[in-house]
């Protein structure tokens, strides 16, 4: 057909979409703002629920998107997207113009900047870290706190930047409960003598094998789950973190000393996505993610003809859902071309 599709974002959704589009005979340009493809998965050690090595998924995606029909351009973000007749003109931040017969937006998510929830002391106290920081420690193979020692008591705070009017995010990020459970188990694997406390409001284990993982965390690993949202963290003179929380099941306010606090940062519309929305006329919804044409049967379809969404640029999704959603976007692109018969 000789049609050319530009995919914006080379994370899980973008790589999957690009690979599937090229398999369907289309020419693809895959734009990535970072210097390498892969997206967030590059920073993650293992993936829930089976704690599979993230490298395996990355390799699958690299294989899929390594095709002569796919041109990967890294270090390129899109400044402008404008319609020109039946095609689109994309302008990159480097000033390059690219023509596209269709566009797949796969700009993904940004992790909530935990320092915005200042009462948790991220960026102020050294031993308060984010879920992403903990993955880096897992990759390094060593979990240590600022003193250089291994932490004995570790707290995990759920819903940081999610379900919280105070930061303007009313929605649930959907993946942080299972991430907390996964990370709690991994901490126990690394440090069998440590105590791990998860502070949660609701355990939202609504994915395949999530509940089983939760149960394993309790039964096999002895992770403690305390139902209450942490109100604030402070630091003692010897670098411990004091957490204030109510054990709402016992109706008891607690003050706990711990060595390391891990914040389960939520998912937000990515900065690249917001920038694109502002310059392209693509609509966003209540939660600032891109707004699909229909929540039930048009989640890949945007308000601009020929521009489609793939993955977490519309809502939080796990890797499995992201891959399915990217494939669905490809189906929409193919149908768009055959309907327009051009």
């Amino acid at each position, binding site marked *: 057909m000789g049609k050319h599709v530009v995919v914006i974002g080379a994370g899980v959704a973008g790589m999957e979409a690009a690979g599937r589009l090229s398999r369907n005979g289309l020419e693809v340009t895959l734009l990535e703002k970072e210097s390498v493809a892969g997206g967030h998965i590059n920073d993650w050690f293992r993936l829930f629920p089976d704690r599979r090595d993230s490298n395996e998924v990355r390799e699958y995606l690299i294989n899929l998107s390594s095709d002569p029909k796919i041109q990967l351009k890294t270090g390129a973000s899109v400044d402008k997207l404008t319609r020109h007749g039946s095609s689109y003109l994309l302008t990159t931040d480097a000033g390059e113009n690219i023509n596209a017969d269709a566009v797949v937006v796969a700009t993904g998510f940004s992790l909530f900047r935990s320092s915005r929830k200042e*009462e948790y002391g991220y960026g102020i106290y050294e031993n308060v870290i984010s879920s992403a920081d903990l993955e880096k420690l897992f990759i390094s193979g060593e979990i240590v706190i600022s003193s250089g020692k291994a932490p004995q008591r570790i707290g995990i705070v759920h*819903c940081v930047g999610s*379900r*919280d*009017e*105070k930061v303007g995010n009313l929605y649930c990020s959907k993946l942080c409960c299972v991430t907390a459970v996964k990370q709690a188990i991994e901490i126990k694997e690394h440090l069998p003598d440590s105590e791990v406390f998860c502070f949660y*409001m609701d355990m939202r284990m609504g994915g395949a094998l999530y509940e089983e993982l939760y149960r394993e965390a309790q039964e096999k690993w002895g992770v403690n789950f305390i*139902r*209450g*949202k*942490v*109100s*604030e963290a402070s630091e003692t003179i010897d670098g411990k973190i004091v957490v*204030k*929380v*109510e*054990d*709402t099941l016992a*109706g008891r*306010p*607690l003050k706990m000393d711990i060595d390391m606090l891990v914040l389960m940062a939520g998912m937000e519309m990515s900065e690249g996505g917001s920038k694109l929305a502002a310059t392209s006329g693509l609509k966003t919804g209540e939660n600032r993610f891109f707004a699909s044409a229909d929540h039930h049967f048009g989640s890949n379809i945007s308000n601009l003809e020929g521009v489609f969404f793939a993955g977490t640029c519309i809502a939080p999704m796990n890797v499995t859902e992201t891959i399915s959603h990217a494939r669905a976007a490809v189906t929409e692109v193919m149908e768009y071309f055959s309907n327009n018969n051009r």
Partner: protein
Amino acid sequence: MDNLFDKLMEDIRFEEGLNACMNCGVCTAICPAAEFYSYDPRKIVDIVQSRNNELIEDLLKSEQIWYCGECMSCKTRCPRGNAPGLIIMALRGLSQDLGYFTESEKGRQQLAIKRTIGESILNTGYCVYIDGISPEFHPEQGPTWEWVHENRVDLIERLGGNYKGDGPGILRKIPQETLDELKKIFEVTGGLERYEKIESYSKKKAAEMNLDFDEGIDNEYFSHIYKTNNGSHTR
């Protein structure tokens, strides 16, 4: 009987303070009163949002609603934008209106607050003025207070104050026209009416409890509500 939830809804503070509570406990975890008292603002919010008339009535008659310091720390943190402190204010107001406050030890102390701080504002322009902090009723001031209180005129002068004097300075006299204005505010906003309600419900309670009731602080009922402590308020 009145629907108490509807009555609460007539209070702007209640409407403002209650959206929907998800029982996260952040308000209780941050609450300075909850650290000390047997007090859980989360539970209070959960009870009022149940709209259960009996439970709300119990709450209005309970000790719990009198522990809050109205510091509003809870409002700054609630992820649902509720303000338990404002809800408590509305509950207190309704408890005073309906006379339920006389059913609890902490509630009965409303009369003490009215007659000390409440009247002090109107008479002196100060919530608390040194004359009113008598050694008998304020043992927390420590052993030297009796001497300080007795010698307050000389002492305040040496400290550079302007005790009951005209013009500027610490502890100065508040001019009559300012006091008149204050009184007007209490009249227009219903403060005075509330004072009267507290007086009349307390009088009724005193009769029920067989205790002498009179104006001022020198009578059995006042002394009783001021000094008794059942010992079960704190954690």
